[in-house]
């Protein structure tokens, strides 16, 4: 079953075509990586899928809802109800603790629940750091708080924009392992990355070039079985 379907998406900024007739689907429980060089339209595409931007043309069907028919308020509701966002810069609120940062997502969704937020932090290995401010956390820890925040409202789709872009190798592996666990548990994940190592952990990889889909690669070993592809030759060739 497709949870996401893009039908001929275009995005124009004046005379510049950021996206040109992008068509793709994402199945429920799939982990898709979107790759491409700088300016290829990756982030624009992620913003459209994440209801933070409206395409100039085409339709986005997310969990059976045609996003192009929705108002700004409707898109906000979809963002709140169905999407979990993970950012490259983490974007934590600096004056709130890790726990409160997670609870903020609950606050805008429904009701803050401290126990549930603590459980989400425990899931990313940060229960002990729940009462710390973002400035007291390392980059990897901040990103894990960001993931816990993305998960807290049980989103239908997790969107991650360069989730390891600001992390060292150790933290990158830690974050990717969390994503793999989430994937194994059945979460649908779309990751934008320029890092082949990250893309290699995904189930499928799409390459964007000049706003078009320039290529697609299915990984030899799908992630639901819990393993990254071992054989380098069989890994994603996108990068």
């Amino acid at each position: 079953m497709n949870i996401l379907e893009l039908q001929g998406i275009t995005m124009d900024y004046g005379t510049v075509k950021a996206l040109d007739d992008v068509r793709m689907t994402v199945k429920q429980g799939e982990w898709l990586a979107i790759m491409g060089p700088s300016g290829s339209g990756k982030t624009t595409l992620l913003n459209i899928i994440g209801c933070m931007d409206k395409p100039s043309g085409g339709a986005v069907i997310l969990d059976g809802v045609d996003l192009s028919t929705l108002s700004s308020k409707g898109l906000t509701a979809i963002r709140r109800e169905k999407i979990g966002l993970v950012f490259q810069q983490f974007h934590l609120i600096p004056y709130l603790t890790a726990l409160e940062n997670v609870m903020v997502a609950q606050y805008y969704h429904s009701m803050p629940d401290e126990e549930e937020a603590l459980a989400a932090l425990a899931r990313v290995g940060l229960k002990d750091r729940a009462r710390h401010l973002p400035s007291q956390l390392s980059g990897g820890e901040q990103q894990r708080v960001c993931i816990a925040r993305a998960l807290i409202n049980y989103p239908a789709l997790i969107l991650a924009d360069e989730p390891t872009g600001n992390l060292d190798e150790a933290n990158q592996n830690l974050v990717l392992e969390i994503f793999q666990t989430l994937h194994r548990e059945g979460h649908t994940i779309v990751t934008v990355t320029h890092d082949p190592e990250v893309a290699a952990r995904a189930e499928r990889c799409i390459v964007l070039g000049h706003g078009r889909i320039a290529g697609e690669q299915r990984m030899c070993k799908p992630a639901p079985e819990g393993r990254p592809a071992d054989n380098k030759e069989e890994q994603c060739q996108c990068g």
Partner: protein
Amino acid sequence: MTKYSLYGKMVLYALLRRRSRMVVALLAVAIGATVLSGLVTLYYDVPRQMGREFRSYGANLLLLPDGDNQVMPEQAVQLAAGSLPQGKVIGMAPYLYDRVLINSQPIMAAGTDFAAVKKVSPYWQITGQWPAPGSGGAVVGAEVAELLRLKPGQTVTITVPGAEQEKKLPVAGIVHTGGSEEDFIFVELPLLQQWLGKPGLVSVAQVSVQAGEGELTAWMQQTAGTGGGITPRLVKQLTQSEGLVLGKLQALVYLVTLIVLLLTLICVATTMMAVVTERRKEIGLKKALGAENRSIVLEFLGEGMVLGGLGGLLGTGCGFYFAQVVSLQVFARPISFQPLIALAAFGAAVAVAGLACLIPVRMATGVEPATVLRGE
């Protein structure tokens, strides 16, 4: 942690995080509230204080005989004065005038109630002393005293035309007013009534009432045509001056308050606009997490309300202190705390701070998450 406590924490911590900016905004609100509370408290109290001050300039209402009559019954005067607003009459001094002879020189004599004169005309400056009640003493106008070379403690001999008998009165004091009173000799009213054979009659009654021109005119219209042989008349110079001064003071209070509130509004709005600009990423993040514009508006309004509330509390207190100091310095009287004015000043401070947040809040709701959260 409930939704409300998280909201409260977000509002409070957002304020605390930008202490210096918020202290400036808080001071702006506090100063606005101080001026508002102080000036309004003063303005509320000033008519009362000014009224007392004006009353020291003498009577503002005259009760005169009807038509061509030279005198009117003292009883009718009392009756008319009794119908004036309760508690606002400072005093009523009846006068009976006639010419007498002193050393064969014609001098105007006035019979009056010295105790009432003290209340109605507190500007009288007496050299010597006021006559003791029932002593039969006289107060001599400064001009008359100079003409007749009279000094307190001496005796003056008065001849009433038509009565051959001379009256000898002790001079208790000499009165200086700079006005027509200096050409008179003042004796006790019953004494002159008896000498002139006009018992129970007076020529005029001067009344000092703590009321404005409008109130007195309304009273005059009410009493007109009720009979009694009395015609009330306003001392226009005093009543109009009082109204004029109070009117100008009112305009000044309104103007200063308006300007200060406007400056407060601009200061808070500027601060909040800077805060919104600084917090664009945070706003974008909240919107990306699904916050509706309503939630963002509520958060910034909450910050504005906290600023307004704290500034309002501080300013209302300072305003009362300011008004108290001014009142003590200018009028030498304390003022009483007016809870309604304090409440209004507090409410105005909160309202101004809330209003000042409108433009910044509009800016905040216009933040596009995709733009501000773009990767670097």
